[in-house]
């Protein structure tokens, strides 16, 4: 009788243990489907700056020069690439030795969807003083210019 009781207790225990030990392993996780290759949109950058005395309807310089006359209107065509909100600032300066005087500072703000051409221009009815000038083009509130061009007035 004792033997029967022992078997009655032991058998379910053994069955449970066996079941626990042979518990089906969960299937290995299937590797995640490879995410489609996405490239983050490139931020706006300055791709080219050209100076001249005239621009076309596409805002590109049509008469390129880096030497201007006293009565010229001076154009700078600034090409940008990339997408996102863009703040393009052009600072024109007169340079004399190690001193500079700000001539003008103008900003264009726009939402860029791709390549864009932007033009900045300055004129001085009383005539430009002869000497060396510079245009610095800044992106956003950056302290350092994204592009710089120098030119002369003769």
């Amino acid at each position, binding site marked *: 009788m004792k033997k029967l009781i022992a078997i009655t207790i032991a058998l379910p225990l053994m069955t449970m243990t066996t079941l626990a030990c042979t518990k089906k392993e969960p299937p290995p996780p299937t590797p995640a489907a490879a995410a489609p290759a996405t490239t983050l949109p490139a931020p706006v950058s300055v791709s080219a700056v050209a100076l001249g005395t005239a621009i076309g309807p*596409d*805002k590109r310089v049509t008469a390129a020069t880096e030497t201007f006359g006293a009565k010229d209107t001076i154009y700078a065509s600034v090409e940008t690439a990339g997408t996102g909100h*863009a703040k393009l*600032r*052009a600072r*024109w300066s*007169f340079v*004399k030795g190690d*001193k500079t*005087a*700000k*001539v*003008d*500072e*103008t*900003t*264009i*703000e*726009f*939402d*860029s*969807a791709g390549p*864009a*051409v*932007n*033009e*900045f*221009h*300055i*004129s*001085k*009815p*009383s005539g430009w*003083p002869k*000497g060396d000038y510079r245009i610095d083009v800044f992106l956003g509130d950056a302290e350092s210019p994204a592009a710089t061009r120098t030119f002369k007035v003769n």
Partner: protein
Amino acid sequence: MTDGQDGKKDDDMPDFSDVKSGASSTAPGAEVFQTYEVKSGDSLSKIAKNFYGNGNAWKTIFDANTDILKDPNKIYPGQKLKIPPKIPPKL
């Protein structure tokens, strides 16, 4: 638009106060403005007179700078103000 002087007079340097400037873009909806750094003694009407030839146009400048100006009578040296282009009078 009119001048872009920063208010720092240097007798050694030429006067650029009559410089006219402008800008445009192929990007749709582009906004163009000049930047002016406030100097001691400035007021919005003085700046408006300087840029637009009309001190009463101060509100144009104030409206363009409500992100940094709360009171048109309180501007401080060093603040950089957006100066919108002068709107030509309607014919």
